[in-house]
């Protein structure tokens, strides 16, 4: 079971702003790593943009599960994990991180921040520690606090999109994805194995 990324974002209108992110791409081959990272940023932003304030959701895409929590104050967190990683623990992690972040970083910085400007360094440590869910969190506590029925489940990324919107278009328009990543996506799409880069 694995965590690949942990990001803090601000759900602005209309775009989501990435404030801070931590990645673990060690399981990917060397040449894939930068593309994978870009796609995870792209995915995290897209998911936050398409999720309502005050909601929690899990979006499945191939063998990945993206867990998102958007708070009522528009602060949001996304964890990208594999399908083995228990979602309960993922949501505990998000709750904890956003709580800590909001105490460390002044609200006024959120709408205009960026990873370079934001001063919050705990993310990498959290990602690393939570790789082993049982060491990081006692299960019983989570069971009591979180009502799992309120978590929205999406079976594909596509179900987040508006009618008529296509993922391909969003990818090609994206400012977050480099040329190589976009080309990678196109080839993977052609082979009908979407995002095998991930």
């Amino acid at each position, binding site marked *: 079971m694995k965590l690949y990324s942990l990001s803090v974002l601000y759900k602005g209108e209309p775009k989501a702003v990435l404030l801070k992110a931590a990645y673990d791409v060690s399981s990917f081959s060397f040449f894939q790593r930068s593309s994978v990272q870009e796609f995870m940023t792209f995915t995290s932003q897209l998911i936050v943009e398409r999720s309502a304030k005050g909601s929690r959701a899990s979006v499945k895409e191939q063998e990945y599960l993206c867990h998102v929590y958007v708070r009522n104050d528009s602060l949001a967190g996304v964890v990208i994990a594999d399908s083995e990683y228990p979602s309960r623990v993922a949501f505990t992690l998000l709750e904890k991180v956003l709580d800590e972040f909001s105490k460390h970083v002044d609200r006024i910085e959120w709408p205009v921040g960026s990873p370079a400007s934001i001063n919050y360094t705990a993310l990498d440590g959290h990602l690393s520690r939570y790789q082993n869910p049982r060491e990081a969190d006692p*299960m019983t506590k989570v069971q009591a606090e979180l009502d799992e*029925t309120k978590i929205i489940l999406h079976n594909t990324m596509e179900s987040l999109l508006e009618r008529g919107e296509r993922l391909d278009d969003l990818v090609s328009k994206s400012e977050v994805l480099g040329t190589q990543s976009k080309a990678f996506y196109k080839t993977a799409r052609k082979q009908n194995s979407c995002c095998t880069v991930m």
Partner: protein
Amino acid sequence: MAETSEEVAVLVQRVVKDITNAFRRNPHIKELILSGTLHPVKDLHLGKLALTKFPKSPETWIHRRWVLQQLIQETSLPAFVTKGNPAALPAERTQRLIREEMEVCGEAAGRYPSNYNAWSHRIWVLQHVAKLDVRILLDELSSTKHWASMHVSDHSGFHYRQFLLKSLISQTVIDGSVLEQNPLRSEPALVLPKDEAAASTEEARINLPRLLEEEVEFSTDLIDSYPGHETLWCHRRHVFYLQHHLSGPHVSQAMEVDGLNDCSKQGYSQETKRLKRTPAPDSRGLEMEHRFIDQVLSTCRNVEQARFANAYRKWLVTLSQ
């Protein structure tokens, strides 16, 4: 055919370029090994590298077994003899080879989910190189435990644990059956020197029920922590089944030997012996399983988990029929 290091370099190129054919259709590698030009150990190293990029590659695993077989047959690899001295440890070189193979399999298993080819190779090595040595089986059981807990939907990984448990049981039976047991007689007829036989079977005998019990606890722990993984429930079925297999007639004979050897034990009444000979599923075990299912169903909020728990219950019912 004259093979030089250039030939080997060409082969490396071929491997990188076309893993499918490099080991399969390339006669030169086998010729190189058979002629003594390419040392099997170097070939194994090459295969190990190839597996980092192609962890599933059937051709690589098949070729690897061919190479290992060459090594086993060669006199250069000390034979893994157990008949003369059951307590003897395998030769150092063989142990190293086994450890290396376990590591290669472990890495490949981590690179691709449910990597059947890697795990079946691992099993093959235990069967043909390690000859199902009990100490190695026990070591593998404990050393793969953490990995299994971090890969809860890796069916092949858990199947490996089932194989280990099954092999431990069968190895105990083999040792136990050497001790000829006539249920009507009060004493077993020992074929092996008493001390060694007692030592090896006693060790396996004492641990076996405990091992299975630990595996059940392990399964419970995982099912509670990680709801909704069918692999874990499948694994539980296998372990439960093995537990009942364990309380079957042949192993109960070994248990009786235990009682007979230990004269201070007063508890062995005729009734106890008869119960142990009964092959029917242990009702206490069944009851505990049903309670476990109840506990899961009452606390779980995962739809899949509930489904698996109910299916498990239905399966248990068919067992007692």
